[in-house]
């Protein structure tokens, strides 16, 4: 397959190799003033994330938001360092509202209390546009959020799940012309082609609400609805697999609705720098089987799947177009060179 040159108007999602944990950098299309808006979803290793963002944007960036999907240590460890660095202080801080008792989480709150960043407690249905990129929050469901105070929801099920779609036109055009004749434009543009879903550590409870709140509605010739509308918010090209490929997070029927081409698992197999115990857990075989069943290409940041090599995974989504991707070859403690060309395998 031919190499693809990353363009400044592409939406570029970088799932960094940071061991067992998540650090995801979203580079939005460059603005007219040559600044790249950037979003950061979780941060396990701050220095690598910072160095990568600088290199990836020619040091011309503005952090629009930091999203802490949920407050487990492997997702928030580096966030306080980002917040304390004025270059990386975001306009907005998104969190799920699930409060943790850890010192790391408390330090983040304390830093936020002294900064101008706006903290937003997000839940499903929230939408935001940055350029032509639409961001929709798929989870946590408000129904789960209202149960945080009880013992009914655990931290993983409080995870924020984000859907990013790179449209070929701006939101005003999309919203003013949803139909062409009596056919949905979503149908015409092959929904899901330019979509990536970042699934945090969402587990079964969360997915059950996502599938209820974002159902797949299909056009049916038989019933001849007034508008031939097909909506499938879960259709996507790329999924950052939930919870490092845990078997509790990956229902097959959800993958069938998503029908992803590419599934990325951020993980570290076999060993950890632990004081006691080794991990050797993730991804679980059940999860891999479900992804195989849905015919997704699988990549792991530690290279453990089918003896691949470890490295960050970069996905470039052109406006309204089909994504391109490749895997770099950085170790978890190395900063990869900023990619300019993607060589698909």
């Amino acid at each position, binding site marked *: 397959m031919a190499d693809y040159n990353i363009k400044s108007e592409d939406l570029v999602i970088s799932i960094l190799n940071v061991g067992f944990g998540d650090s995801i950098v979203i580079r939005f299309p460059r603005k007219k003033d040559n600044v790249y808006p950037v979003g950061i979803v979780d941060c396990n290793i701050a220095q690598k994330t910072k160095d990568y963002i600088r290199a990836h944007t020619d040091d011309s960036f503005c952090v629009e938001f930091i999203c802490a999907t949920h407050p487990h240590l*492997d997702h928030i460890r580096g966030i306080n360092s980002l917040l304390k660095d004025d270059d990386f202080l975001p306009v907005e801080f998104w969190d799920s509202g699930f409060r943790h008792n850890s010192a790391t989480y408390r330090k983040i709150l304390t830093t936020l209390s002294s900064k101008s960043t706006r903290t937003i407690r997000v839940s499903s249905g929230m939408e935001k546009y940055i350029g032509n990129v639409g961001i929709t929050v798929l989870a946590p469901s408000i129904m789960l959020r209202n149960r945080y105070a009880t013992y009914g929801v655990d931290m993983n099920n409080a995870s924020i799940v984000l859907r990013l779609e790179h449209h070929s036109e701006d939101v005003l055009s999309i919203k003013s012309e949803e139909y062409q004749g009596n056919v949905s434009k979503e149908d015409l543009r092959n929904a899901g082609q330019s979509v990536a879903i970042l699934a945090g550590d969402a587990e079964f409870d969360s997915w059950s609400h996502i599938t209820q709140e974002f159902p797949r509605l299909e056009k049916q010739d038989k019933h001849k609805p007034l508008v031939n509308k097909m909506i499938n918010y879960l259709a996507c090209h790329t999924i950052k697999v939930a919870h490092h490929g845990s078997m509790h997070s990956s229902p097959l029927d959800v993958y069938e609705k998503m029908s992803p081409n590419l599934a990325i698992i951020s993980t570290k197999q076999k060993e950890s720098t632990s004081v006691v115990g080794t991990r050797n857990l993730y991804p679980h075989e059940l999860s891999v089987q479900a992804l195989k069943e849905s015919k997704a290409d699988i990549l792991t940041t530690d290279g453990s799947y089918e003896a691949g090599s470890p490295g960050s995974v970069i996905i470039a989504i052109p406006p309204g177009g089909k994504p391109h991707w490749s895997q770099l070859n950085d170790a978890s403690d190395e900063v990869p060179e900023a990619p300019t060309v993607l060589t698909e395998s």
Partner: protein
Amino acid sequence: MRKENKIPKVLRITIDERLSENLIRLEICKLVDIGNSGEFKDEPGFWKDAAKEGEEILVQSNISKHKSRKKLYTDLMSIPKSQVDKFPWKDLKEGQVFLSGEFEVKEKMIKNKNVKQYFIHPGKESFEQIDDDVKENTKNLYFEILAKGDKYGRL
């Protein structure tokens, strides 16, 4: 032999995530050096960052009895032998917070409320679960942050 001037060790331990029945990730933070006496609090300024970036502390249950005793969670969390039975593996849950080490707890009435205070006590071996207090403080801080938009005129 000259006696070393050892810094009393106090740890703040959070059950961060139960990864499986037999595996838990801990967040362990050391108390900053405040000398051999004095009060400390459960506030960020008193605690060093958790293990350095890229490191994680995973503990296994007592099932690993064939391994050396040193590797058990009760040792890593420095649970005094007299209290080990109070904290069985199955009762460890995400969000629990413990103070462990050389300190003592004193209680004081403040505004008709019984408030726990923590003081360094070299040589004493203590283990105290504190998450009820942590929860309340974190909740207050969280909503203070959500509400602070007006202060900066950004909402």
